[in-house]
């Protein structure tokens, strides 16, 4: 029971990180391998805010999420849109954008190494036990889960209940048809890429409240997000949330019952199994 709850609490934060990636890939058609760097930058930003000015990370979200939006929007407009423009096919764009964002990954990782070194960081925020369902959990994990759930719900309401959100989904479904209803596909793609960055940044801020982070863990989190996105079905918000909870529970299970060192191996094992047997996602019918 404790394992299940801990896993679900972890999965809540994973869900946000993965939602950011799936928005970027589903709408802007960019498989952003540097997505994890946004997360790490958000961890460090939250740490800086907390340790230098004492700003509570939950308030920090209000500063860091807009920064994530602007930074990712700028990356899209400045670096990725030229690739989109010159691509003659979807396949060409995928190859180009994977290579470009792979390069960005190393660039950002190097910059953060330069700034913070390779050491592990953490800070004490709501690090008090909280009794819940017969178990005892860190209050910061519960708070992070609650905040993640609220942000995911807000994203869901935006995507499904507003016209702008529906337009974002329309671009994901059929960019050419979207142009026929007066949607500026380039603008929506940039917006969705920025929004995805903001959501991932929120995930990073929440993660930093209970997790020890360092400058080089971005790629690992990109992989986790990728696994969740593929497991949930690309572009599927509800699928991503459920897949994130599954991954969180599985990691916690492996870490507490077998060995914490095997967590990553289990994660990749799950990835291989999904690619072999359900490449269209656990809940997806036909692909695409």
């Amino acid at each position, binding site marked *: 029971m404790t394992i299940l709850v801990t896993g679900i609490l972890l999965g809540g934060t994973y869900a946000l990180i993965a939602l950011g990636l799936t928005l970027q890939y589903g709408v802007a058609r960019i498989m952003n391998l540097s997505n994890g760097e946004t997360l790490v930058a958000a961890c460090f930003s939250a740490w800086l805010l907390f340790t230098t000015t004492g700003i509570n990370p939950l308030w920090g979200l209000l500063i860091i999420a807009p920064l994530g939006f602007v930074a990712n929007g700028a990356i899209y407009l400045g670096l990725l849109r030229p690739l989109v423009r010159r691509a003659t096919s979807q396949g060409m764009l995928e190859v180009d954008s994977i290579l470009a964002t792979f390069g960005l990954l190393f660039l950002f990782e190097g910059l953060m190494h330069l700034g913070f070194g390779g050491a592990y960081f953490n800070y004490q925020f709501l690090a008090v036990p909280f009794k819940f369902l017969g178990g005892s959990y860190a209050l910061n994990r519960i708070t992070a889960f609650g905040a993640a759930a609220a942000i995911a719900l807000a994203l869901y309401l935006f995507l499904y209940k507003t*016209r702008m959100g*529906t*337009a974002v*989904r*329309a671009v994901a*479904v*059929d960019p*050419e*048809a*979207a*142009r*026929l*209803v*007066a*949607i*500026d*596909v380039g603008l929506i793609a940039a917006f969705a890429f920025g929004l995805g960055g903001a959501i991932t940044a929120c995930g990073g801020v929440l993660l930093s409240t209970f997790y020890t982070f360092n400058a080089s863990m971005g790629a690992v989190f990109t992989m986790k997000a990728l696994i969740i996105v593929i497991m949930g079905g690309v572009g599927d918000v509800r699928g991503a949330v459920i897949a994130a909870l599954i991954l969180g529970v599985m990691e916690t299970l492996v870490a507490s019952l077998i060995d914490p060192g095997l967590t990553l191996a289990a994660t990749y094992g799950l990835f291989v199994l999904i690619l072999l047997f359900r490449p269209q996602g656990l809940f997806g019918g036909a692909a695409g």
Partner: protein
Amino acid sequence: MLEIQNVSVRYGRHQALFDIAAQVERGKITVLLGTNGAGKSTFLKALGGLVPTGPGASIKLGGVEIAAIPAHRRVEAGLALVPEGRGIFGKLSVAENLHLGGFAHRARTDEKERLERVLDLFPRLRERMPQIARTMSGGEQQMVAMGRAMMSHPDFLLLDEPSLGLSPLLSKDMFKSLRRIASEADVGILLVEQNAKLSLEIADYGYLLENGHIVGQGPAEELRSSPAVLRAYLGEEVVPA
């Protein structure tokens, strides 16, 4: 008035359209007839901004030049295209498709009234609002496509073979709806069709397209009895006396 001049389209080394000139009037139905591969669909896509036109092309909508602006802004200018294959959002519901039809700023005022008119025109859609579009029949999907186009409050509606895949009875209904759209909403309709007989019955004016060239034009009633049209498009209707 939609005034089209010098519209040429190339796909690589293959030229699909040669200096097309045509006019579409508001409140009227203009039909573009031609065999498969004549360039009809390409012509509509060029007008909608989905394929680039050659130099010197002019597309004037109510006197405003739109040949150089991207597809989404042509919708704002008053042009709505229902392309080959309908172009609806298959994974979204009927309601969402219609809602997105009203995404254009020009369509935001009176949106509710417009939705009511569309649902009066296609009552079937009213019962199917929550349904995912791609799970509907071909005829119903065509209604979604036309309804969505009407939601953008167009001055001109470009339709690529709306009767494709419909039963003869449904085709008749579809053409009747076009007449209503043209007269009640004062929309100019440019219709691409293979079904020459039915489309000439409801059209006001027609153009004949062959191998990327306009080879004939005239009022629909003249085309209906023109020997060239009878031979080329209504072949099955010519009964030896």
